[in-house]
């Protein structure tokens, strides 16, 4: 049994009258590739934003490597890298390489190490030729890869990816899947949110399906398929939505 990397204890987030996350308890083990699935508005992004401190939980607790994510946020942030769904890049005056060097700096990596680290990631993610370009000059796919490189710039042991392949074409999606599998093979814990159930089936050891803020299903994709007598997560997902609506 691996030790938990992320523990959510009765996590709850309410915005006005909307319950975005409702009593969510979950453990993600160290080195695990975990998928958080669910339709729009299920609470996936709220949950991962709560882990990195961008959302204040209404109640409940989040532990990362045993530390309270709210109280010990500085140490927790050293362990975690996050790639947001929106392609948010500080590109008004920084070029592609500078974005990575500055991001490394925020994580305490001195310039003499930040530059080589940025260069290594630029080559790895096929952005070397664009290192002096502004963000506005990048294609959607290049921006997506830069966002991922940014999340990895401090070599985190836990990687959180919010819809990393949203809007990507088939070729790019396959490339990103290979990269994620490589990172997982290096021992990184990966928490992925996705709409693409095929992506979750292919990459994730376990998945949790959120519906209206609650954890509706949890298990390995093949185990869930067996339990529900369905061949794919997609069918289980549709069955779940139909049963919740009826």
């Amino acid at each position, binding site marked *: 049994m691996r030790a938990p990397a992320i523990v959510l204890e009765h996590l709850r987030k309410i*915005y006005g009258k909307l319950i975005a996350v409702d009593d969510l308890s979950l453990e993600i083990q160290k080195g695990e590739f975990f998928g958080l699935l669910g339709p729009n508005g299920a609470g996936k992004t*709220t949950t991962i*934003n709560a882990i*990195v*401190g*961008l*959302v*204040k939980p209404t109640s409940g607790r989040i532990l990362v490597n045993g530390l309270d994510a709210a109280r010990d946020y*500085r*140490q927790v*942030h*050293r362990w*975690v890298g*996050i790639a*947001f769904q*929106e392609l*948010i*890049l*500080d590109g*008004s*005056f920084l070029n592609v390489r500078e974005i990575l060097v*500055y*991001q490394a*700096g*925020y*994580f*305490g*990596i*001195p310039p003499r190490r930040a530059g080589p680290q940025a260069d290594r990631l630029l080559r790895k993610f096929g952005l070397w030729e664009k290192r002096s370009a502004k963000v506005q000059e990048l294609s959607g796919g290049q921006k997506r890869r830069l966002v991922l490189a*940014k999340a990895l710039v401090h070599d985190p042991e836990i990687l959180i990816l919010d819809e990393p392949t949203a809007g990507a074409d088939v070729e790019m999606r396959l490339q990103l899947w290979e990269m994620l599998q490589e990172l997982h093979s290096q021992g990184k814990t990966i928490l992925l949110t996705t709409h693409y159930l095929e992506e979750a089936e292919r990459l994730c050891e376990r998945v949790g399906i959120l519906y209206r803020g609650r954890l509706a299903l949890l298990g390995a994709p093949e185990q869930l398929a067996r339990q529900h007598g369905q061949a794919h997560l997609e069918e289980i997902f549709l069955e779940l939505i139909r049963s919740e609506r009826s």
Partner: protein
Amino acid sequence: MTGFLTLLRREIVRFLKDAIDTIAPPAVAIVLFLLVFGVGLGPRLGEVHGMPYIQFMTPGLLLLAIARNAFLNPAYSLFQSRWFGNIADFLVSPLSLEQIALAIILGGVARGIFVGALVVGAAWVLTGLVVAHPLWTLAYALAAATAFAGLGCLVGLWTRGWEGVGAIDTFVLDPLVMLGGVFYSLEMVRGIPIIEPLTALNPFTYITEGFRAVVLGGAPSHALIGFGLTMGLGVIFVGASLVLFRVGYHLKA
């Protein structure tokens, strides 16, 4: 410390790389004031408190340049980061929330002092300005820049739209400055309805008079009152910024 210094460097690089939009307009405006009132109208305006009008006015213009630039940098930088979402880059890093606030405020202080230095150079060329107490002037300028950068940080946190920063600049900062002793002293408006009470109640009046005293070598009592007031405002604005960052005001959902 590397994280803090990186963010501070970002704040400084931001205004240096965008100098045409950030540094040039206020610097040019101040130089135009010096040209019009100093080189142009100066000889016809006579003396104020025993000195040429341009000499009287220059410290106020210098303080105005420092205060406005120190205010604008954190206000726009912070709101821009909130608006575009890249504030998350700092918030998910190991930087403490207080470090983020301080780096943003110090970026404003750096811009205020940078533009202030440009204005001193221009004033030296155009009016022959010689600073009477350089170290006191620097300390006063740093205190003023910190206070107004703290105010800028608060505005950058508070506003929900681009117009918020402009509104504070136009409806708060401009009246404070125009009625705050940059162009005249409190003594000169004694007995004038509306103007005298507005000037007398305006803290910027005493800050300007104190700054004029350290730049030109005036009464130490003016300098102490103004410096104390500036420090007090600095503690309030910077302290409030730190508290609001700590609670995640307009930063965390």
